[in-house]
């Protein structure tokens, strides 16, 4: 199995925020924390594009590299997770992340910064799979239930794809070939540009560029 990956098709995203809502509802994410959000460029202008952004579960994650207490780990499926019992809430990961994925609940006096919270690819955390402790700290563990992330499964236009990188890339490649454009999707090179061990070079979708 390849690594778990997200990709958002900016040609399809309609900025409905269904992914954001699905994430918040699924994991009981506290007020002020957005594990996923929709970013719109050229809002209201011709060529407007929206893209759903969360933790991209980087192969060489900068958050892991800078964490002073080494609270991050990567699962066998390539999902980057962290242990909140080890996190000290310093915020270094927030500065290091190019996607703004690490979030910090400010629910105390003087805007106290709590432990870091981020997208878990619906894979929970180091607590027992599906336990109450895991839900309290990290939210639902859908992967252990045989499901994929709620945001991708709930996306009405299927702009947001999430799951096994090989399958996701195949779905997206087919889509690009059918419609004839979109191979220049943002983040594609980062997410799929370097195929994992062996295999054919199937990373870059081919299609006529718009």
């Amino acid at each position: 199995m390849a690594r778990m990956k997200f990709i958002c098709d900016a040609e399809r995203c309609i900025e409905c925020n269904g992914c954001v809502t699905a994430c918040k509802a699924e994991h009981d994410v506290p007020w002020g924390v957005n594990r996923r959000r929709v970013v719109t460029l050229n809002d209201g202008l011709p060529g407007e594009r929206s893209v759903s952004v969360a933790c991209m579960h980087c192969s060489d994650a900068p958050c892991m590299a800078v964490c002073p207490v080494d609270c991050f780990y990567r699962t066998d499926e390539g999902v980057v997770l962290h242990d909140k019992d080890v996190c000290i809430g310093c915020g270094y990961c927030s500065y290091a992340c190019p996607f703004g994925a690490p979030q910090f609940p400010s629910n105390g006096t003087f805007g106290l910064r709590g432990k870091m919270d981020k997208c878990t690819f619906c894979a929970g955390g180091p607590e027992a799979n599906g336990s109450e402790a895991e839900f309290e700290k990290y939210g639902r563990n859908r992967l252990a239930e045989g499901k994929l992330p709620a945001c991708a499964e709930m996306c009405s236009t299927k702009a947001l794809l999430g799951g096994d990188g090989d399958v996701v890339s195949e779905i997206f490649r087919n889509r690009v070939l059918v419609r004839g454009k979109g191979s220049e999707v943002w983040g594609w090179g980062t997410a799929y540009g370097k195929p994992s061990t062996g295999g054919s070079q199937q990373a870059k979708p081919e299609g006529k560029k718009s």
Partner: protein
Amino acid sequence: MSMGKAALLLSCAAFALAACGEKTAGAAKKSDAPAFQGSTGASAYSASGWKAGDQSAWEQQMRHRNQGQNEYSRAPMQP
């Protein structure tokens, strides 16, 4: 060596080694169980079609589930 010097040396050594028994601050990172092992307590929310603990069945379930995001497999194109 006088008794005074010996006592001073011993106290210095005790002071210097005092931190050696200190426990590491903070919690140790816990290990995580793989997703294919399933949820504890047979979650009522688990999807059917795979058996917890069977890695290949779980991977197959993931690939099958992924096709739910593929509109061309859900609603094939008309000729």
